[in-house]
């Protein structure tokens, strides 16, 4: 398994599975995420409310809410 992860208290991002489609970025209600170099990046983790909408719609299971 090829995994290169960013782990925070609220979210986990797996850069290796992310295809940079931007779906999570667009539908995050709190503008927590952005795309940089064709990968998702957390820009403001404090704003994350762990609603799970990014996880629900990520086609590649590259982002998910932690400890919920």
């Amino acid at each position: 398994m090829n995994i290169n992860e960013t782990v925070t208290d609220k979210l986990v991002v797996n850069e290796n599975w992310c295809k940079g489609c931007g779906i999570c970025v667009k539908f995050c209600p709190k503008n927590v995420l952005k795309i940089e170099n064709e990968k998702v990046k957390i820009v403001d983790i404090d704003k994350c409310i762990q609603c799970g909408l990014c996880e629900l719609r990520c086609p590649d299971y590259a982002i998910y809410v932690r400890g919920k």
Partner: protein
Amino acid sequence: MPSEIVNKYFRTNKLPQIWCPGCGHGIITRAITVAIDKLGLDRDKICIVSGIGCSSRAPGYMDFDTLHTTHGRALAFATGIKMANPELKVIVITGDGDATAIGGNHLIHACRRNIDITTIIYNNNIYGMTGGQYSPTTPKFDKGTTVPYGNVDKAFDIPALAIAAGATYVGRSTAYHTQLLISLIENGIKNEGFSLIEAISVCPTYYGRKNKKGSAVEMLEWQKEHAVNIAAASKMTPESLDGKFLIGEFKNSPEPEYTREYQKIIDRLKKE
């Protein structure tokens, strides 16, 4: 570590999938596993069957007993599995081409028999895998590689087709309306009979590009803006529904199930 749900239900060594960036098929596939998880089903009593297409590759990533069959024939194989072992929960994953073009006849007869199979049609309005040929669900005047100047065929309304053919549970949702999709799949699996859920997907690579629908994000936004739940639609004016399409639970009316009816005949003949 992948998420709990992905770790539990996916063959994680096969991820990421081969699908294009933003392909809606990945969203729908996860939704199916969430529905299975919510129902608390015994995974050893589930069999997932598919035909051929980008959509039909989904079971290859799913950690269940799975069967990847031939184009259009998923329901024929699934019928055999269910007849041989009626204890199993049989789930079919198929595409608009697989289910309504080459497999159209299998589809209507599975509906008619009310055999206990839950079928999820990943409808991206095109043949994705083979390069964007039009399918029976390509909207009129839209383009595909085989209709470069626009399609003149009228598209199938999959739920209407399934209802007319006798399916006992029918619903439609989209990749964007993922929570609704999960609950329709749950209810479809619970229905002991033939359940059909149309999951409207997005294919940014072929359908999207050929019809200038923009990126995967824009295609999902279109779903968000144009879908109306059938429960809300009854209170809306015809003008406000113009250009919209319906999602939600369209039919839920159980009837005697095929393998049970078949068993009754066997039991009766044994007694005679």
